[in-house]
Each structure stands twice: as C-alpha cells, then as structure tokens.
C-alpha cells in the first residue's frame, strides 16, 4: 500500500514536471450530421499521449509540440490525422467509415476483419436494424443478406419466421443454429431488436464448421450491444407508435351474385334451388365479412438504454416494451413483450477479466387459429355466405342457413377465442478470462437459457340459435372447457476455450481450442377440465369447475439430451495476402446410440488478397480477393431417443361391467440403433472487389451444398405395424449463386447509399432411400398437394394438369374418360399417359413452392439533418397453391371470378360450370389452384430529421431524431390472395395458402433521443 502511494506521488511529480514544456490543444469532434461524438479517441501522433472526448464531444489534450499532428478516431468512422500548425483550438468532423473491408465481422468464436475472411459470411449492422422498426430480428435480416430466405409463418403479431440459409437442406428441420453472444439458443423470439449490435450469418460450411454438428443449415450469430470503455455514459430513448391496416380485400360474390350462383349450382345438379333465393334481384350487396373481421390495429414500442464505461469496466442496462395488436382480432391476436438486459465486464486484475450478460424477456401472445382451412376466421370470412348478416336484429350474432360445419360466423368465432401463450425466458452467461501472456488466454463461459411458458385456453359457452336446437353444431358450444399447459426448458452450456495468437515476421497465426458441454431438459405438464359454472374467462381455472376432480385430465412428461464437443480452429495469414483457416470439431450427442455417438466435422478455407501483391497496381481497385472453402457440417435435430425402442403406456382398452380403462403398453416406433449424424458437405467459391476507396463494393459466391445421410422418417411398409424410425436416408442438393453490391457516395452535401443483393437457388432431392416418395400438405381439396421425390425440389406441387373446359358433349365423348357423369362445363384434365382414362397416373409436377431467386435492395439519402431510406424485398419464380376457397362446402361464398363460369358452349374455357354435386370432381388437386407467387414488396420507407447539434448542445442532448416510416406500403404481385408471402407449416408444407393471416400495412412515427 505504501509502495503504491509512493509510486503515485512519483507519477504526479513527473506529470507536473512535463506540463511546463507542453502545449494544450482543445477541440470538439462531430459527425457529418453535426452531432457531437462522445468518446472519440484523440491521440498525439507517434506518442501514447491521448484522451477521449467528453459528453459534449470536446476534448483537451496536452501535446509535446504545437506543430505536431493528432489522430482522431471513432468506431465506425474514418480515422483523421490533423496537423495542428500552431492552432490551439480545432473542430474535427469525422465521416462514416465507407470502407466495408475494414469492418470487423463476428465469426465463430472470434472476430475478423472482413478483408481477412475467406468463408462466406453475411452481416447486418445495428444501423440497418434500426432503419426498419421490427418486432423480431429475423425481419431485420429479410432481404438484406444474400442467400438467406426469410418467410413469415403468418402475418399475425409475434408469429415465427422461417429462416433458410442457402435453401432447404433437409426434410426434418432446416432451421439454422442461433447463437446469441456465444450462447446456443432455440429461436430468437426473446430478443429485442433494439438490443442488437450486429448479426452475422455463416453460410458456407467452413465458416460454420466450428459449430460442427448443428451447423448444417447455417449459423446466425447475434451480438448484443454493450457499453464501451472509451465512451462516456450515454442514455438513449427510442419510441414509436403506429397504425396497421389490411392492404387489400379480395373480390368476393355479393349477396345478389351469391344467389345467382347458388341457384345455378342446384339446377345444374338436378336439385331444386332454395325457395327464398329464387329471385336474386331482391338482394343487395349483403354482408362484407372481410369488413367485419379486419380492423385497424396499433403497434408501439418504447426502449430505454444506458451504457457507459471507464478504466477497466463497462456496463449497460436496457429495457423495452413492445405491443402489437392484430388486424384480425385486435387484442385476440395481441403480442406484448417486456425485455430487460444487463451487460457488464470488469478487469479484476491485469491478467483477469470477468463479465456477465443477462437478458430477461416476458412475452405473451394471444392467438387465433391461422393458416388452417377448417378453423381460421379468415377462411370463415372468405367462405361465409353474404346473405347471413353479422348480427340478428336483436344484436346477437347470426348463423348461416347455407353453409355447414366448420364455416362459422367469424366475428363470433373470434370473440369466443381465448388462447394465450406466455413465456418468461432468461438467457444469460458469465465468463472469466485469464491472460497468461499477450499471446495466450483462456476463457470459461457458463450460460443458461431457461424458458418458463404457459399456454392457457378457454372455450366459453355460446349458442347462436334462438331455440336450443336451432343453430348448427359449429355455432354453439354447450359445454365450456378450460386447459393449461406448462412447458419448461432448462438448458445450460459450459464452454472452455483457449486462444493463442502469435506473429512470426510476416506470418500471423491464431488458434482457438476448447470444449463445450451442453445439457437440455424439457418438462411438460398440464391439464384440462370441462363444465365451468362461470362463463367468464377470468374465472377459467381447472379447479373452478362443477366437478374439479372427476372430469379433469392431466398430463406430465419430460425429456433431456446432452451434447459434448471438442473444438479447434487455426487462422493463418501471410503478409495479409494469403489467408488460410482450418477447423476441426468433434461432437457427441445423446440422441445417438453408443457406437454412433460422435461425429467429426473438418473444414478448410483459403483466401488470396490479390491487390496486396507487388505486381498489382490498379489504383482504382482497393481490394480484390478470391475465396475458396470446403467443409462438413452436421445436423442432429431429431427426437431424443430414436436409437432405442421406448415402450409407452396409455395404449388402453376398457374391461369390466363398469368399462374401466385398463393400461396397455407397447413400443410404437421401431428402434434404429444405427442412427447417426446427418452431414452436409459444402464447397464455396467467392470473390470480393472494392473500388475507389470503398465507394463501390461487390461480392459474389457460388456454392454446392450436399446433404447426405439425411435424417428422415422415411415411410416403411405398413406390414411392419409400427411407426417408421428416423433413419439416415436421402440426399438433397442445394446449389446457387449470390451477388452483393453496395455503393456509397456524396454529391456536395448530399450523402447517399444504394445497395442490393440477389441470390439464385436450386433445390433438388437427389436420393430418397429406397425410392419412396413422400406426400404431404393434405388439404380439403382431397389429399396431398405436395410431393417430395428424386429429381424434384422438396415439397413440389403434384396434381393434374388441366386443358380448359369441355364445351360440348362431343368433346366429352372424344376425350379421355374422367367420370361416367362428366358433362359439358366440366374441367378437362390432361391424359398425360395417353391411356384414355384420367386417373392417378396422369398426375404430374405442377409447381415449385420455393423461389428460383430472392432479392432485396435499398437506398438512402441524407442532407443536413434529413435522412431518407427505402428498402425493397422480393422473390421470383415460386408458385402458391391457393387452398383458401372451400370448394368442398356447397353453400360457401366464392371469389367474384366464378361469375365468369361456363354457362354454355363458348362462355368460358377456364371457370367450370357451378354444381353442388360436381361428379367430375373439378376441384381435385390441379393446376387450377396453382398461382404465381413472385412478388416485390416495399418493405420499409422512412423519412427522418435530426435536430442540429448546435441547438442540442445547449440542452446537453447529443442526438434527437424524429421519423415517420411506412411498411409494406406497396406490393407487386399476380397472386390473387391477400398476401403472396406464404409461410411454411414444416419443411414439407411450403407455399400452401390456407387462410393465411396477411401482413398489414403499417404507418408509424417515432423519435430517438440520446443524452
């Protein structure tokens, strides 16, 4: 202690001593928008003397000579060197770092300068995320990263998105691996986009190989914001409020037209039409059921964050609140999220650093049935007849006399839906890092990801009839019921890593090695009961029923799996010209049997920075790099115990005079002790070019990605009598090419930026075990819509081709036999095998649900305090199967296009005659329901204004920006449904519209304030 004091005194004396020979320079640092920069580095050239700017952006630095130079730098800005030339006060304006190649990119277990990367990595920055107010961060990636296709599963608030990195790689589960601040997590629903610093997508096998066994479908690395040591304290507050509305309505039959079509349908089938519909002219427009269910809905967000740091430590705290209601159902489709996050790190000793990063999220989501042709209120609104009013004269909801079973009054159906999913999730990690020397350090990280989720459901009593037996079954519920489900997932991960970096002359080497252990446990329990004396959803508890014990049901189950890995990676760099990265990872998973437990995943990649060669002297080209990589990744996303036979209870029968349920037990699934890793082998070639000091950046990649030993529950013969085990069967090839271009520039004071990316992708099933095709996507239009087979893309549409409409009886007679009762006005199906009979053998591939091309482009302009940006996103070349019209329901409403129906020779060659019996089965799966799914959408457009710094400085505000933003304002598409962006229901159900909850058109206004 005494020693320390003496040292301090000596230091102080020396410091004072030097003051007299020095010169003081004062100044302020601004960005191009005139906003002061807090925490910019100011350094005297050639010395270690330096300081950082304070909260006003100003600094004061003692320099050795009044003619020396100072260097001013700031993260994300171009460094500037300024000769003082005797000045004692200066103003420095830093411009944004236009040089993409100097950007630091987060890669697996480390960071790399973009110019030194030899794999294929796409990034999304915090600014890009901030430029589009979004609910989930997948939305921020959509259209901004080449080769990554993102599709919303539904337009309802809080709905998940499907992320496909370089195509659908496997049938079982093609989701990428998500890693947030080093923690492997399931999904990203818990993240607040405002907390994100940047996102990297590792696309090629070599970049992803360091995540080994789980990286086959790409890796999404998310880094959250943290305070900076160099930066003083900042406080930021962001908020926006907006309104969402449906962007288009479909043209359906009105009441008068409905009556015409209904009468004709009955007459064409030889039946008597409804007496009360006989004179259609007495009807008007009737009920617009779309009007009845679509509403304007609010969206709002608040975020507050505080960051700061000092010598040896930094801390950050943030909190957020987000609320979005649905354009269908308002609060019945509400998503609400609270987030809180704390990050800190501290240098305990010069050789030791500790840190923690903890996030808590509470979110709740109310859901309506969606993307389901039997239960979705959107399907009901599209198919409910326009004659039925929303309400009866007494104000209660009306039911239809014309449609049956699942087509219900959608307004009543929405009102009586009470489904809520609420989750509390904690994702956090703590680490300690020990520095053995400047070259070698170790880090041990322990992290947890725990989710506590509750699903509540309540079905109240209702009866739309006046008398007890008036209303059809679907329009009444005579017994109310309540259910609850608790799902808990508790995962931990413990990683121990060593990092070694060294330089030998012009050789640089970096090594990462270590282990990772991972434990996951899921617990599921819940129950249900019926017959509640109260019909109030607030009283809906299982124990609050007439018979709390007798009629109650309960379940409980749990599972667990473990994972252990050995990790190694070497980066080698010679003269910054020749780059080499190799990695090797061994992963063991409890999902596989003892002899197949470990999988081994090597990779190698190389880069050649040609412009750094001595022979290269094209001054316009500031970077020219060739990249090549090869690697092997794995996938273990299957059920937990596939390698063994599990005998399950509950296969019961009833015995005895009282019919007592008696337990039965059997293994329902055949075991597969040979189960092993699915592997993906990918080769990638890429080129990066930067021209005119970063004004233009171009990048391109081509790849071939082969999935082998695909994990798949391939069908087995029915005679086995048990469910098919998961087997390593099948091969899929995804191949493609990706382009990225970005240009930044300025004309006088107007800065601008334009960029875009486009990817072409081909997906093909190469091999499927014993050649068994898989049918999927069952719809009401009878049977499977999709087929997965060798030589075709996954889940291709499969059905009949049509060839217009039979105009005359002669045409029917001369065509291939379809049905004994086929008559003029029916659809003519193509007899592809020319056997003169239309049957299953005539089915063929009629559409591909995956796009050939995905693309996005953006542009932004800023002038003084104003900024303006726009962002388009699109897909091209995919088809949609439109299953939103319930042709199986005789009395259902129809699109107005049915008015163009066939009514006699020459009247129509595309819309068959209407009929209630439809003996020709005109509505079988055919190309009649296939539509072009290409679209181009203006995802976001934004206009902002930042108040000038000179004004803000007076009130100690560093930034105040207002903006207005519009989302999904324009969509160009030929698709006839609400929204061409159709989500998936699993890998084998792509692009089928079953009453999809459409995206809304959103207009919002916000402000961003930084102190």
């Amino acid at each position, binding site marked *: 202690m005494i020693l320390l004091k003496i040292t301090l005194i000596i230091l102080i004396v020396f410091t004072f001593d030097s003051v007299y020979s020095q010169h003081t320079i004062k100044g302020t640092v601004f960005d191009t928008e005139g906003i002061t920069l807090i925490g910019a580095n100011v350094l005297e050239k050639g010395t270690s003397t330096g300081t950082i700017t304070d909260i006003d952006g100003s600094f004061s630095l003692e320099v050795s000579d009044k003619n020396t130079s100072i260097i001013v730098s700031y993260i994300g800005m171009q460094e500037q060197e300024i000769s003082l030339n005797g000045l004692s006060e200066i103003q420095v304006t830093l411009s944004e770092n236009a040089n993409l190649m100097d950007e630091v990119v987060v890669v697996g277990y480390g960071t790399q300068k973009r110019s030194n990367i030899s794999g294929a990595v796409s990034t999304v920055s915090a600014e890009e995320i901030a430029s589009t107010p979004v609910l989930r961060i997948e939305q921020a990636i959509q259209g901004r990263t080449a080769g990554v296709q993102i599709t919303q599963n539904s337009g309802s608030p809080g709905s998940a998105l499907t992320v496909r990195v370089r195509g659908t790689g496997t049938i079982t589960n093609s989701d990428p691996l998500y890693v947030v601040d080093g923690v492997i997590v399931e999904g990203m629903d818990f993240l607040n986009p405002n907390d994100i610093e940047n996102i990297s997508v590792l696309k090629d096998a070599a970049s992803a190989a360091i995540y080994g066994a789980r990286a086959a479908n790409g890796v999404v690395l998310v880094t959250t914001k943290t305070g900076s040591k160099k930066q003083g304290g900042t406080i930021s507050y962001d908020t926006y409020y907006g309104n969402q509305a449906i962007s288009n309505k479909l043209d359906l039959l009105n009441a008068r037209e409905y009556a015409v079509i209904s009468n004709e349908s009955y007459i064409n089938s030889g039946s008597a039409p409804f007496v009360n519909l006989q004179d259609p002219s007495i009807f008007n427009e009737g009920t617009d059921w779309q009007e009845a269910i679509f509403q304007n809905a609010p969206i709002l967000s608040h975020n507050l964050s505080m960051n700061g740091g000092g010598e040896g430590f930094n801390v950050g705290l943030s909190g957020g609140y987000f609320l979005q209601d649905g354009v269908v159902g308002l609060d019945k489709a509400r998503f609400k999220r609270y987030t809180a996050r704390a990050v800190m790190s501290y240098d305990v000793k010069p050789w030791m650093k500790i840190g923690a990063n903890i996030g808590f999220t509470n979110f709740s989501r109310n859901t309506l049935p969606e993307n389901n042709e039997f239960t979705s209120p959107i399907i009901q609104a599209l198919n409910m007849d326009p004659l039925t009013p929303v309400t009866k004269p007494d104000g209660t909801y009306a039911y239809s006399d014309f449609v049956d079973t699942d087509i219900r009054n959608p307004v009543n159906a929405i009102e009586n839906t009470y489904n809520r999913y609420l989750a509390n999730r904690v994702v956090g990690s703590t680490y300690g890092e020990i520095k053995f020397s400047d070259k070698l350090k170790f880090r041990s990280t322990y992290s947890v990801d725990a989710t506590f989720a509750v699903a509540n459901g309540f079905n109240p009593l209702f009866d739309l009839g006046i008398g007890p037996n008036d209303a059809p079954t679907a329009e009444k519920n005579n017994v109310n019921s309540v259910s609850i489900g608790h799902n808990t997932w508790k995962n931990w991960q413990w990683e121990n890593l*060593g990092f070694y970096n060294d330089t030998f002359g012009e050789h640089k080497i970096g090594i990462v090695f270590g282990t990772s252990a991972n434990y996951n446990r899921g617990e599921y329990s819940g129950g249900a009961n019926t017959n509640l004396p109260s019909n109030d959803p607030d009283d809906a508890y299982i124990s609050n029923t007439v018979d709390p014990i007798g009629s109650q049901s309960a379940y409980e189950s749990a599972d*667990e799996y473990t994972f252990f890995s050995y990790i190694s990676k070497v980066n080698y760099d010679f003269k910054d010209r020749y780059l080499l990265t190799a990695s090797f990872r061994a992963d063991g998973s409890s999902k596989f049997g003892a002899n197949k437990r470990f999988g081994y995943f090597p990779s190698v990649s190389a880069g050649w920075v040609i412009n750094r060669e001595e022979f290269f002297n094209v001054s316009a080209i500031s970077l020219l790099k060739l990249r090549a990589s090869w690697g092997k990744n794995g996938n273990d996303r299957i059920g*937990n115990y596939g390698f063994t036979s*599990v005998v399950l209870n509950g*296969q019961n029968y009833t015995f005895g005079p009282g019919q007592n*349920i008696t337990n*039965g037990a059997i293994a329902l699934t055949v075991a597969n002790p040979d189960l092993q890793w699915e592997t993906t082998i990918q080769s990638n070639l890429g080129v990066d070019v930067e021209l005119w000091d970063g004004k233009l950046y171009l990048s391109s990649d081509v790849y071939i990605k082969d999935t082998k030993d695909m994990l798949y529950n391939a069908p087995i*013969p029915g005679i086995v009598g048990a469910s098919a085990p998961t087997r390593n069967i099948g091969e899929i090839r995804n191949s493609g090419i990706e382009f990225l271009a970005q240009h930044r520039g300025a004309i006088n004071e107007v800065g601008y930026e334009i960029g875009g990316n486009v990817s072409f992708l081909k997906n093909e099933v190469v091999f499927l075990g014993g050649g068994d095709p898989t049918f999927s996507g069952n719809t009401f239009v009878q049977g499977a819509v999709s087929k997965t087979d060798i030589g075709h893309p996954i889940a291709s549409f499969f059905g009949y081709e049509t060839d217009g409409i039979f105009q005359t009886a002669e045409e029917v007679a001369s065509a291939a036999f379809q049905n004994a009762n086929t008559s003029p006005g029916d659809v003519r199906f193509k007899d592809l095998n020319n056997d003169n009979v239309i049957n299953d053998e005539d089915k063929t591939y009629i559409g591909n649900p995956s796009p050939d091309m995905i693309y996005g482009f953006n542009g932004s302009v800023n002038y003084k305090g104003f900024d303006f940006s726009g962002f388009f996103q699109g897909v091209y070349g995919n088809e949609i199967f439109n299953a939103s019209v319930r042709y199986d329901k005789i009395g259902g409403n129809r699109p107005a296009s049915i008015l163009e129906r066939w009514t006699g020779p020459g009247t129509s060659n595309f819309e068959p005659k209407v009929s209630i*019996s439809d003996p020709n089965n005109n509505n079988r799966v055919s190309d009649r329901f296939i539509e072009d799914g290409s679209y181009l959408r203006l995802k976001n457009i934004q206009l902002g204004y930042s108040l000038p710094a000179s004004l803000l400085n007076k009130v100690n505000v560093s930034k105040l920006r207002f903006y207005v933003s519009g989302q999904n304002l324009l969509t160009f598409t030929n698709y006839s449904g609400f929204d061409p962006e159709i989500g998936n229901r699993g890998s084998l159900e792509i692009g089928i519209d079953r009453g999809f909850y459409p995206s809304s058109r959103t207009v919002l206004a916000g402000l961003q304030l930084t102190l």
Partner: protein
Amino acid sequence: MKQVKYISAVLILFSFLSCSKGFLEKEPLVGEVEEGFYKNEDDAIAAINAAYATLQFELTPAGHFRWFWGDIMSDDSEKGGEGDNDQFTLKQLEDFEGPTNTEYLQAEWEANYEGIYRANKVLEKVPGIEMDEQLKNRILGEAKFIRAWFHYNLVVIFGNVPLVDRVLAPSEYATPQSSPAELWPFIEKDLQDAINALPVKSAYSASDLGRITKGAAGALLTKSYLYQKKYAEAKSAAEAIVNSGEYALESDYGYIFTEAGENSSGSIFEIQYMNASGGNWGRNNANEGTFSNIFQRARGQFEGFGFNIPTQDLVDEFGDDPRLPFTVFREGDQMGDRGIFTKDATGGFPHNYYNRKAFNNKSEEAPFGDAAPNGGMNDRVIRYADVLLMLAESAFHTGDLETAKTALNQVRSRVGLEEVEATLENIYHERRVELGMEGHRFHDLVRTDRAEAELDGFVKGVHEIFPIPEFEITKSNGVYSQNPGY
C-alpha cells in the same frame, strides 16, 4: 500470482477432460426402453391390452369402420354424408370404380397390421416372462385371436396380403403377399390355438368382461370356415358354441342395441368402447370412444355427419318384420333424446332413413367441450344370433335340415315370428334382417356368390376384394402386385 495461474490452468484442463461417459448416455424419462420391459405379469397384461387397443382403431387417421366395408359396399346402405364430394373416394369404392390410392384402403391396411404387430410382440415376448402359467396361456390365446382377427379382416377385404407371423426385422420388410389359400390355414390354426387356450365366458372374472373368450374364437373360426364354404367344419365349430351353454338370445331384440344392452347374454365378440375419454382419433392414443355414432347420426340437430344411410331395398326386405324399427329410423321416429326425425331437423338432407343400431342418446355422451362428442357404444361384431344362423346355413349345406330349421327358427321366435322352413332363401333373408346394418352384408353376399346379382357395378372375379393400397405397392418396390382387375 503464478500459483493462481497454474491452479486455474489445471482446473481448465480438468474441465476439458470432464466429458465423463455417462454425460452422453440418456435414456427416455417417460416410458421404458424395451430391454427393461416384459419382465413380469403386469408387463404381460399391459402388452396384451395394447393389442386389444387396436381393435378400437377406426379413424387412424382416415376412417376404416367395419360398416364401410360391410354395409356401405353392400345393397343395405349408401355412403350418405353431405353430398357425393364428402369423402368422395369412399363413394368411388362403393360404386366399384376401384380407386387404388384412397386413404380408406391405406388406413384399413395399416390398422390391421398394427394390431398384428402388437399381437406378435406379445407372442414373442410373453413366453419368456416368469409368471402364472395359466394366465400366460390365456394371454397368448388372446394374442392368437387378435392376430387371426386382423388377418381375417385383411383376407376378406384385400384377399392377397402378406402373412405376418412375427415382429418383422428390417430384412423381412419385403415379405411378399400370400394367397387366401395360404392365409386361411394360418387363421384357422391361430383360432384353434386360441380355442384351446382361452376360458369360456363364464370362467372370466367380472373385471375381465370384454376379453376374448373361447366362444369368440370359435365364432370367428365358424365365420372363417363358412367364408371358405367348409360347411362341415363350420357346423361343428358352431355347434361347439351352442353346446357350451354360455350364450342365449336376449329376449328383447331392441335392448341389444342400447347402452344397457352391451355385453348382454347373446354377445360373443364385442369391441368395447366407452364415452369418457375422447374419440379414437389418430393411431396411437389412449382414447376409448367410437366415432361410429357421430358418423352415422343425422346432421342438423342430431349433431352427426349422416353417413351409412339404409337403402329402400333393405327397408323393403323387412316387410312388417318387428326388427325394422330397431334397425332404421324413419321420418317421424323419435331419435332418442335428440328429438323427432324430420328432414328439416336433419339440416334439409334428403335421406329417408338412418341407422338406428349406431344411435346413441345425447345423455349418454360425456359432456365434452368438443363440439362433436364421441360415443361409447360397443361394436357388436358377432352375436349369438349370427352363430345360430351360421349353424343353420352350414347345417343346410351338409344336409342336416332339422338342425338348420331349429337354429333358424330359434332366431325368428325371439321376435315372435312364425316358424319357416330351412331354405337357403329363408336363411339368407333372416341374416339380412336379423343382422341388418351390423357390417355383415357385403361379406355375406360375396361368400355366397350373390354379390354380382345384387350389387350394381360389381364384376365377378374382381370386386370380391378391394385394391391393395397404391402407396404400399410403391413402397414394396415391386414385391406386391395389385389385385386382378384393378
């Protein structure tokens, strides 16, 4: 300082090697691995019960109800439903248009083989369990019956099907089809074994009511013989049941088809259903209800789907037979506690009749929140009256007209009808009205060579059996061939 570094280095190294073997070895938390099961009496009982559970399968996932094949395919009833397009391929099957890839064929195929798998599992695992030998024998007998029952279904519906007498190993997945001539002896053998192993009905304890009895095995054996026209064998198998004294005709015919009439004195083989735990949706669930009730009740206020509509031809067959009102509902009839049958009340559908034998009262359904609660009515698969009529038929063919007449008139006198002679025509008529809408008619027409004459579109030599499901042929990679004519 240095020490700290070394200690931490050692700790880190330790953690590197810390992947103990056990860490990656995880067994299921719920359920047991098969190696740990089949160890005691309880396991043996649970194993046979799981095989019983497949008897209840009827919507797994598509419908394959017994009445699809027995009634709808015959002249007793029509598909019904909302219109031709409601379960369109079922209509095609009914019209003998021969769709080969319908889900009904596929579901029937899969459900039968799932039952066979479970029975084979019992036959493979239970012999090795140390337990009461008498109980073990009975369980093996029950398994033999269940295996025979599913093969019986397969042979009468599909004709040429693979014979599966063990749990198949992957190398045996390509087992080829056997002909009926190969399948029938296997079925007979299993049923003989079951007869030898199983107790008679009265020897079971009350809590085992619903288990397969010696009588049930004998009755199915009788049916099997009769299907093959082995009349002498059929006659003696039927006589053994009659002589056992275990069964008697229930005096009140209508009572048989009520909830209270389940497992009554004439019940030989009855699939048990109860109303208290959901319907039997899907393949592998614990539910014990039946969808036969809701599928066959009228629509509208009767809250059914209106399938399996009795034909005028069937109604005419009855004349003034007192069994008619217990077989079909006619307009104006009281449909239990659900109201009076008018077409308006059924949602305006044109059907004149509905199956009464599958009707259940609303008060007998469990009060589920489900808008379509399931029924709890047992499926009366083989009744004593059926055995008596099989006896009459086989006795007729073997020339024992006296036995034939006695058996035939025993059935008639129960409902107060006068005695008639034992002619084939009288026996056939009696079967049709006594067993109407119970899933027998199509098979009776086929085995007595009357189908071609009675059924529109039926082609002799083709439509006795249905097509092998297309998907199974595809999966077999050329091992299976389609039935002739399809």
